[in-house]
């Protein structure tokens, strides 16, 4: 600045760069890890689809499973795996990065809060980025499924927004927790072990929940992943009118699934904004 001064004061916007500038930040950060994370996100579906869709699928298909499903096991499994992957990615992003990078160690949210950005915008930017990550994973997964021949209708494209909504229905409420806890004492590990993992196993991913006893079905009702899986199967297989009834969802049920996921997401987004405001304004 010795003798030089580049004025920027007149260019500053009283309400700042908004969520778009936060998004720009996330993109810069992600660019660094893009190759590694894209490889990981292609590798996982390839492994899953090879072992479960093709490997386990060959047994299921050969032993009348294919008949009772009315479609290949791969095409039955794929929509559920897309939803489950988006959910895992989103939950991952809504735990450690928020508490550690945002509030505790690098404290980047505190840096943001000293600018015109509001706490709600910061929370919104964080959640919008998590949704983008989930959608990106779902898209890659769908592409891999298509390569394996597991896509049977154009409707399968809807799996991406559905999986993203399902992911946020869990990730946004978890973000509320991450923005609230002062010290991490294994809470995140518990979320993965006792919430995400059982959800993955018991939400109709590998078999219809109708195979579960009554109480198991009732529990599935509480799982955002089950609602997302039902919707994803409806989008992928519904138009095929399978005799097994797989992918058939009535209008009322359709609205019910959407309402449940939307309600959880909206509540999570609002409460995250509130927790960010409380924590950043101490």
């Amino acid at each position, binding site marked *: 600045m010795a003798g030089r*001064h580049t004025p*920027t004061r007149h260019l500053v916007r009283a309400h700042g760069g908004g969520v778009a500038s936060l998004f720009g930040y996330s993109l810069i950060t992600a660019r660094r890890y893009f190759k590694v994370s894209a490889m990981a996100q292609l590798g996982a579906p390839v492994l899953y689809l090879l072992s479960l869709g093709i490997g386990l699928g060959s047994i299921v298909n050969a032993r009348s499973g294919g008949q009772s499903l009315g479609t290949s096991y791969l095409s039955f499994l794929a929509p559920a795996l897309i939803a489950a992957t988006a959910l895992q990615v989103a939950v991952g992003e809504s735990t450690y990065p928020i508490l550690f990078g945002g509030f505790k160690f690098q404290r980047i949210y505190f840096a943001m809060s000293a600018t015109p950005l509001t706490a709600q915008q910061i929370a919104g930017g964080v959640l919008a980025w998590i949704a983008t990550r989930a959608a990106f994973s779902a898209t890659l997964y769908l592409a891999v499924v298509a390569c394996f021949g597991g896509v049977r209708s154009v409707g399968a494209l809807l799996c991406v927004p559905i999986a993203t909504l399902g992911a946020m229905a869990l990730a946004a409420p978890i973000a509320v927790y991450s923005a609230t806890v002062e010290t991490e004492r294994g809470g995140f590990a518990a979320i993965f072990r006792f919430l995400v993992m059982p959800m993955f196993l018991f939400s109709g991913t590998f078999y219809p929940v109708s195979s579960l006893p009554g109480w198991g079905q009732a529990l599935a009702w509480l799982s955002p992943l089950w609602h997302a899986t039902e919707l994803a199967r409806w989008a992928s297989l519904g138009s095929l009118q399978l005799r097994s009834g797989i992918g058939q969802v009535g209008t009322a049920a359709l609205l019910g699934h959407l309402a449940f996921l939307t309600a959880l997401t909206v509540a999570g987004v609002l409460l995250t904004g509130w927790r960010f405001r409380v924590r950043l304004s101490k």
Partner: protein
Amino acid sequence: MTSSDPPGRSSDLAPRSADRLRRTADPLIEAVGLSKRFGGFQAVRAVDFSVARGESFGFLGPNGAGKSSTMRMVGAVSPASGGRLRVLGLDPAVEGPTIRSRLGVVPQQDNLDLELTVWENLYIYGRYFGIPKRALRPKIEELLDFAQLADRARDKVEPLSGGMKRRLTIARSLINDPEILLLDEPTTGLDPQARHVLWDRLYRLKHQGVTLVLTTHYMDEAEQLCDRLVVMDHGEIVAEGSPAQLITEHVSREVAELRFGIDENEARAAQVADLAERVEVLADRLLLYVADGEAVLRAVHERGLQPVSSLVRRASLEDVFLRLTGRSLVD
């Protein structure tokens, strides 16, 4: 208005004096009865202060005095629990984003993004203010020169030294040409050389007319940088003035320090008390507040007292603080 002005002419003030009046009447920051509570803990207790444009204003006090809480209220991030606060004439409770768009903030703890490069840290911060990409490139170049970090622009932040990180944080706070720069403990944790580099940078900003508001628990920092300061203790302002004024008002011109050995200091204090305006007994030494330190040292020796060591120095803000609170600043 001078005393020779006839009464009743105040409405005919010349434009220049009217302007001067308005400037003193409209400080950049004004707090009246400002308070901050955290649950049952009262961090700031009804403090009054105001900062004028172009001034360097400091909050001096030990850790936990309420300095940072006050700064966070002025920075429009932490709402006041009571009292009235105006920053740039605006109410932080209502116009937080607008106020923050015109401030620069250097927090006590660096919160740079360690995984990004030096350049990227400045860039994203500028974007938060809504500054277009085009304008940011030359601005970042200028700030990197100012912070003496031009050759580290493409390096990640993580491996930088503490002093470099601090300079980057200051550069970052200037991205929006702030009208007020808030610095919370700007040199705490830095080695002496890094502190001097930083003071030099801040001194340049002060010369460019940037209004500086800083907190510190280093009296040398306050003396170097502040035109005016308030001394805070237990959430209250206990004194206000320029460093020189505070010293004149609250302590003598010079201080004679005598060390008799830990067990003896207390006993010797009585023997020299009449030589000084005031004697302060610390754990390791006696402080004699006097007008002429050398003369007092001679008088001490004439009484046959032989301190292990002694020195004479000018009184400092440290002495002011000790006088006002009975405690030292850095413990």
